[in-house]
């Protein structure tokens, strides 16, 4: 969390702009700081893990490691996608100790946003989403919801206990 603070400070310094990688899940568009993304693997077939919590989409091999991949649709409570999703590899700030994957429907491109365009979560948002989202940027072609990769960490998600059976029946 300390480092997130630093990052936001940096943003202030650097002309209050940030570059986010946009991605899609369901009808909405999300953005994650490009600095936190290690690689976009593209569409991948995942090896499912039986008996795993619902938010885990499976595991994927990545550079000799086995990455646990979070199913973002499951987090949002969306039904499972029939198509194979896109996998992003996110870096944990704590020295790459816990690298993990995130599966979304698709990945857009890099978007530069102004810090002042960010608006906090609406108060009507349900608690799960309130915890997940960091607010939304008002873009010309719609809203871009900012995500914090720290909160998407599998161990963090498990700790909160909110998503254990979250969303649609994911566990196969």
């Amino acid at each position, binding site marked *: 969390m300390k480092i997130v603070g630093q990052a936001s400070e940096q943003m202030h310094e650097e002309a209050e702009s940030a570059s986010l990688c946009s991605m899609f899940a369901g009808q909405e568009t999300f953005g994650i700081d490009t600095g936190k993304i290690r690689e976009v693997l593209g569409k991948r077939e995942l*090896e499912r893990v*039986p*008996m*795993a919590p619902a938010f885990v989409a499976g595991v994927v*091999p990545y550079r000799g490691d*086995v990455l646990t991949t979070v199913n973002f649709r499951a987090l949002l409570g969306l039904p499972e996608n029939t198509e194979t999703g896109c996998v992003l590899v996110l870096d944990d700030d704590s020295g790459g100790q816990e690298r993990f994957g995130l599966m979304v429907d698709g990945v857009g491109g890099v978007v530069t946003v102004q810090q002042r365009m960010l608006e906090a979560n609406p108060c009507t948002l349900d608690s799960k989403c309130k915890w997940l989202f960091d607010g939304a940027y008002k873009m010309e072609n719609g809203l871009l919801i900012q995500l914090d990769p720290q909160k998407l960490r599998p161990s963090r998600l498990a700790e909160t206990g909110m998503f254990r059976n979250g969303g649609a029946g994911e566990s196969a």
Partner: protein
Amino acid sequence: MERCLTELETRPQDSQQLVGEIFRAVHTIKGTTGFLGFSRLEKLAHAGEHLLGSLRDGRLPVTGELISGLLRLLDGLRAILNLIEETGSEGPREGEEDTLLITELAMLNGEQGPHETEEKAAPVVSIKQQEEAPTPAAAAAEPGIAAANAQTSSSSSGDKTLRIDVEVLNRMMNLVGELVLTRNQMLQSGVESTNFPELARRLDSVTADLRETVMQARMQPVGNLFGKFPRMVRDLARTCGREVRIEFSGQETGLDKSLLEAIKDPLTHAVRNAVDHGIEAPADRVLAGKPAEGCLRLRAFHQSGSVVIEVADDGAGIAMERVLAKAVERGLVTPDQAKEMSEREALQLIFLPGFSTAAAVTTVSGRGVGMDVVRANVEKVGGSVELESKVGVGTTLRLRVPLTLAIVPALVVRSGGQSFALPQTALVELVYIPARDKEKVVERVGASEVYRLRERLLPMVWLDRLLSLKTETEAHGFYMAVLEAEGCRYGLVVDDLLAPEEIVVKPLSAVLREIGLFSGATVLGNGTLALILDIAATAARAGVKPVMEEQADETVALHQDEASFLVFEDRARERTALPLGVVERIESVPISKIEYASGRALLQYRGELLQLRDDGHVLDDMYDLQDEEASVTILICGDPQTTSSRMGIVVRKVLDVSDGNMLEKDAANGEMDLALVNERLTTIFRGFAGELGKSWREVA
């Protein structure tokens, strides 16, 4: 320094050099800490130095108390060093402990005279005349000072750092360079190019070399682990009132670092057991005609691809009757079973979980506390535990561990459309069940399904159901892998078997580890992932317990084997019998297959030359029949313990298998081995490896 101190105790004659070494270590600590401004540490070190100074000058003899004091000093120093490492300061607490320790050290130093006479009752170490030795300046300067100091201060971070031979590192770097070059060539030439196969081969060899080098780098001498035992054994021996000498051999045997960590606890446990329960009190030892000082031997060596670590004591051994009595009392075996148990089987009882609870066998017979834990831990890393004991002579515990953990042979299976890897170590056998036989062979006991495997019921676990996977339509049938781990034995039903592979174990993230069923994951040859099934955890999840009854069943069956005979006819009209235990197979062999060399009949049997015994001249009779197609019945016999002494016995006819009683040998029956089998007189086949005959005769 710790090593020096314990060595000092055992070899007082070398004390000059050792004390010098310790003195320098403490002095260095003192100097450095004074320089860095850690006053508390300095004060303590100073007190120690003072005492050591007296010791070095020969003013004090080396005694057990003295060494204990010094060891406590060492602990004190280490505690402060750890504190410094953690917090960056030595802590404001000008603790009572320190003062206490300093006074104690001072007392040891100053009031050694009266103190000594008071404490004379504890004759743990013979008081050597330090005075004899001349009082020279410090012994030959050794470069060990800085090392000793560094070792003390870095002991806690030792788990995370590793010392590697520079040469190994260089070789690794070279290989990585080669790997990069090969990759570049591959990228440039592309798959279509003509030299692609050659590049692939080179990549293969470079990878193999690199793997070997990395493995080598991970290898740590077992001595690192042994190093902490002298101190532990010493402390333990003092608290238990034993006299124990510890001996090592094979310290240089290499073992993967992670494995070394894994066997640390079991080994510590074993050593503690040996001192606590194995070795008797000095008085008892003297009574038994043994030297008062017990000996604990730690040995490490390579044996057929695995590393064996042996903990041997020359203590009282394990009293079999007591073990059996306890087992019966605890309901692990019935009295009848206990009566028939062999020594080896009885020893295995110690590993049963029921034996491990407090107030079990320990108080009466020796071992047993947590032996099941020892076994479980060693089995977890793919090893095994053996126990040997002779009453009055000693006990030997053998831990057998594979060389490395990272790469394990495994069988890849498919279930519910997913791949899983089963470690080969747990795999006993594989059974194929065709779909049409399913109804017949899968039987039910209540709600649980069992399979009759060689007349024993084996609980069946359906992997797809257990993991709530999608069940695939059964096409041809299914496979059952018979698995054994931590005493559980069960059949795991899977849809299909894929190839056996050497897999590289990759750890799973914490979230997935929590599931508790998978010990890791691996990337298969075809690039997909497979989860590695934790055999013991799967058993627990499926409700398979390490059932005692099951094992008891086995032993009962075994005993029946030993007491029963295979009755056959070799000489015409005469009944001859062999104990069933020595008969491996009954084969029907075409007579043309039997060959002769220098007058003896031989049979090529499974790549082995088998000598044939034909006491009844069955073969001659067969040849007289002039029938090329005829075949004879041959009993393949062998010692179940050693496969070397196999032989074949030619018989006319196998009659029966049944229980029987040996008759007492006496003059009336002409010193013949006779037995009553089914109320009929039967000769016992003689001349089969004498020792073997003896062992089963005892049983019969």
